[in-house]
C-alpha cells in the first residue's frame, strides 16, 4: 500500500514458478530447496543401487531352468527351485496326481470369501454361499464325506428350535408348524438313536478317494485354518463380548475368565496343549484328528481377541443408544441385533481386520505341531538336500503369497469402511 513506485518506473517481476504439470510437481515436491534437492538425489541413487542389485540377482543372473540345486550355484536367484517345488509348496503331501482337488478347493474357498465380501449377499444368501462353499471344499479335500444320522437329527433339532424361538412373533402358522415338525423329528430321532432303536446309519457321499488330513498341506491348510478359524471365532467373539457386558454375574465371570485365560497364554502353548497334552487325557485308542485340534485351538484363541476388539466397539456407543432402544420397548435380542451390534461393529472394522490379518499369518504357528501349512511346506522345500541352500528365494516367494492375501484383506477393509459409513458422511 505504502510502497508506491513513481509513475513510469514499473519493477519487472519474475514470472511465477510453474508448479503445474510433471516438471512443476517435481520442482515443487522434490527440489523446492537445496536441502530437499540433495536428499532427493541421494535417495534416488540409493534406491537405484539397491534395486539394480536386486534386479541383477532376481532377474538378470537368475537361473530358471536348472535341474538340481548344484546346477544353480554360481548364478543369482535360483527360481528353478520354485519351479521344481511350487506344487509341493502349494499343496503339500496331497497325492500328486490329485492336486487338482486342493486347487479347486482353494478356488471354491476364495469364491466363497469374495462372494461373501459383497454387502448385497449379507442375508440368507450368505448361509447358502457358505454351506455350498464349505461342502465343495471339504468334499474335494477329503474326497468322501460321511454324514451320520445323529448329526442330521441334531441339525434338524437345532434348526427347528432356532426357528421356533427366533421367528415366534413374525412367522405364519404354516412356517411355525414346519419348525415344530423339524424340531420334533430331530428330538424323537435322537431319543430313538440313543435308545438304540435306530441304527448308526450314515449318508456317504464318496465320489473320490479318501485323503486324510495328515496328507493335507500348503495353501489349502492355511486358508482353511484362517477362514474357518475366523468364521467360527467371529460369532463366538461377539457372544463373549456381549457376555462380558452382561449383568448376570455367572455369565460375566465365565466370559471374563475365558478371555483373560486365553489372552494370557501364547497361541503356541495352546497349540502344544491341544497336540501334546490333550491326547494324554483321552482314553487310549481314541484320537482326535490333529488338524481338528489345531483348528479348535485357533478358534478359541481368535475368539478371545475378537471379543476384546468388539467390546471396544460396544463401549464406544453412547449410553443413549441403549436407553433409546429400551424406551422403544425392544427386547434384548432386538436391541442387540438391530441397534447395538450394527453400530458397534462398524466402529471396529479397522481393528477387526487387523486381527484377521494377524490371525491369517499366525496360522503358520501350526508348524510347531507338525501340520504342514503354507510356510511349513515352503520350509520343507528347503530341507530337500538336492535343492538345499536357497532360503532367500523360498521365503521371498512365501512372503509374496502372504502379501497378496493380506493386502487384499486390507483393501477390503478400506472398502467396507467407506461402504458402511455412507450414512454418517456429510
Amino acid at each position, binding site marked *: 500500500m505504502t510502497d508506491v513506485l513513481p509513475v513510469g518506473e514499473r519493477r519487472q517481476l519474475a514470472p511465477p514458478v510453474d508448479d503445474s504439470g510433471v516438471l512443476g510437481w517435481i520442482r515443487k515436491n522434490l527440489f523446492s530447496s537445496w536441502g530437499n534437492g540433495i536428499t532427493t538425489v541421494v535417495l534416488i541413487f540409493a534406491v537405484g543401487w539397491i534395486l539394480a542389485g536386486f534386479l541383477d540377482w532376481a532377474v538378470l543372473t537368475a537361473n530358471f531352468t536348472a535341474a538340481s540345486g548344484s546346477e544353480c550355484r554360481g548364478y543369482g536367484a535360483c527360481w528353478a527351485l520354485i519351479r521344481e517345488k511350487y506344487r509341493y509348496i502349494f499343496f503339500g503331501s496331497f497325492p500328486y496326481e490329485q492336486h487338482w482337488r486342493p486347487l479347486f478347493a482353494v478356488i471354491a474357498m476364495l469364491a466363497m470369501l469374495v462372494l461373501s465380501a459383497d454387502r448385497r449377499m449379507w442375508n440368507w444368501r450368505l448361509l447358502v454361499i457358505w454351506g455350498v462353499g464349505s461342502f465343495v471344499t471339504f468334499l474335494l479335500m477329503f474326497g468322501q464325506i460321511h454324514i451320520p444320522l445323529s448329526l442330521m437329527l441334531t441339525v434338524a433339532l437345532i434348526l427347528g428350535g432356532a426357528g421356533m424361538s427366533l421367528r415366534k412373533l413374525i412367522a405364519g402358522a404354516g412356517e411355525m408348524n414346519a419348525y415344530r415338525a423339524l424340531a420334533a423329528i430331530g428330538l424323537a430321532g435322537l431319543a430313538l438313536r440313543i435308545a438304540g432303536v435306530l441304527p448308526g446309519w450314515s449318508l456317504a457321499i464318496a465320489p473320490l478317494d479318501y485323503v*486324510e488330513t495328515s496328507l493335507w498341506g500348503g495353501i489349502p491348510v492355511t486358508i482353511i485354518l484362517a477362514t474357518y478359524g475366523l468364521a467360527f471365532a467371529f460369532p463366538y467373539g461377539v457372544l463373549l463380548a456381549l457376555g462380558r457386558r452382561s449383568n448376570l454375574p455367572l455369565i460375566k465371570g465365565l466370559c471374563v475368565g475365558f478371555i483373560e485365560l486365553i489372552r494370557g497364554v501364547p497361541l503356541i502353548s495352546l497349540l502344544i496343549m491341544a497336540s501334546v497334552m490333550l491326547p*494324554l*487325557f*483321552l482314553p487310549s485308542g481314541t484320537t482326535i484328528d490333529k488338524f481338528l485340534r489345531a483348528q479348535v485351538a485357533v478358534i478359541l484363541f481368535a475368539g478371545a481377541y475378537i471379543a476384546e476388539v468388539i467390546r471396544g466397539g460396544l463401549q464406544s456407543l453412547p449410553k443413549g443408544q441403549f436407553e433409546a432402544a429400551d424406551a422403544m420397548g425392544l427386547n434384548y435380542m432386538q436391541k442387540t441385533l438391530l441397534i447395538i451390534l450394527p453400530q458397534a461393529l462398524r466402529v471396529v472394522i479397522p481393528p477387526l481386520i487387523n486381527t484377521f490379518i494377524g490371525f491369517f499369518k499366525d496360522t503358520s504357528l501350526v508348524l510347531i505341531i507338525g501340520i504342514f501349512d503354507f510356510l511349513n511346506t515352503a520350509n520343507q522345500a528347503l*530341507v*530337500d538336500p538336492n535343492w538345499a*541352500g536357497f532360503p532367500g528365494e523360498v521365503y521371498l516367494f512365501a512372503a509374496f503369497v502372504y502379501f497378496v492375501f493380506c493386502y487384499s484383506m486390507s483393501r477390503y477393509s478400506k472398502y467396507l469402511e467407506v461402504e458402511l459409513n455412507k450414512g454418517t458422511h456429510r
Partner: protein
Amino acid sequence: MLNKFLATGIAAAALVGVAGTAHAGKDLDAIKARGSLTCGVPTGVAGFGLADSQGKWVGLNVDVCRAVAATIIGDAEKVKYVPLTAQQRFTALQSGEVDMLSNNTTETLTRDTALGFDFGAVTYYDGQGFMVNKKLGVKSAKELNGATVCVQPGTTTELNLADYFRANKMTFKPVVIEKVEEVRAAFFSGRCDVYTNDSSALYSTRVANVPSGQSPNDYIVLPEIISKEPLAPVMRHGDNQFVDIVRWTQYAMIEAEEYGITSKNVDEMAKSDNPVIKRILGVTPGMGKALGVDEKWVYNVVKQVGNYGESFERNVGKDSILKIDRGLNNLWTKGGLQYAPPIR
C-alpha cells in the same frame, strides 16, 4: 482350594498317562484290520525323512516304515505318515496316534523303560563328529590340537567336545554361538577351523549350507565319532509280536545285504540252492509262520524297499547328494556295526 484342584488334575493326568502306556496287545491286529501302518516320521530331516517335490515321503527312516508295511501287509506303499516334532513324538506314540516312530530317535535307557517304549534295531549309528576345511590338511581329529571349534552352547555336543579334547590331552578355543544358522555361517566364513555336531547333521550341512562360490567337496568330515547316538524305531510296550516284527524286518534287510540279495536280483536269488537264502526268502517255509506273517515277507521287503545297503546308499550314501560314508553303519563283515542275528 485351587491348589487342591490343581493337584487332583495333575494326578489324573499322571494316571491317564500311565494307563496310556499299558496298552492292550492289539497293535498288530489293528494294523492288519486297517490295512495300513501309521508311522511317525520327522518333520523334515534331509536323507532320513522328508517329503520330496511330489510330496512323497522318502528317507532312511521312511524306508523302515515301508519295510514294516511290506512285512505285515505285503505292500510297502500302505503307510500313513504322520510328521511329528521332537516334542510331540512320544505322546503321539503313547496315545496311539501312531503305531510306531521312525523318527531319528536316539535309544536310551530311560526312554526304553520309564517312557514305556520298546526300541527296534538300530537304523543308523549316529554320533558327534568334526568337519574341517580341506585346506587345513587334517586327516584325523587327533591332529586338531589348538584348533578353534564352532559349537552350540548348552548341548551334550559342547560337553562331549570338552571331554574328548581333555582325554586326548589337546587344547581348543571354543566359539560358542547359540543359533545353528550363525554357527554354520561362522564356520563357513572361516571364523573357526572345526565345526562339531552329530555327523549326519554335518553331512547335510556340508551339502545344504555351503555358501555359493564354495563347493561341498572343499570340506571333509573326519572319521572320528566321539559320542553314541544310535537311532532306532520306537514302539509302545504291550504288543511284543509287533515289536518282534519291526526288529526282524530290520534284521532281514541287513541279512539280505550280507547274503547279496538286492531288489534287482531277489527273483534269481529265490532259485538259489543256498539253504540260508532259501530260508530267508521263504522258499523253505517256517520263518514267516514263526513271526506270524506271510512266508514271503523278506522277499516283499527286499523287492519293494531293498536291502539295508541299498536303502542307505539311496537315501544318505553315495547315490544321494549327502554322500555319507558307511563308517559305523557298514556290515559287521566290513568293519561296521550292522550285525543281524541269523534268521533261522
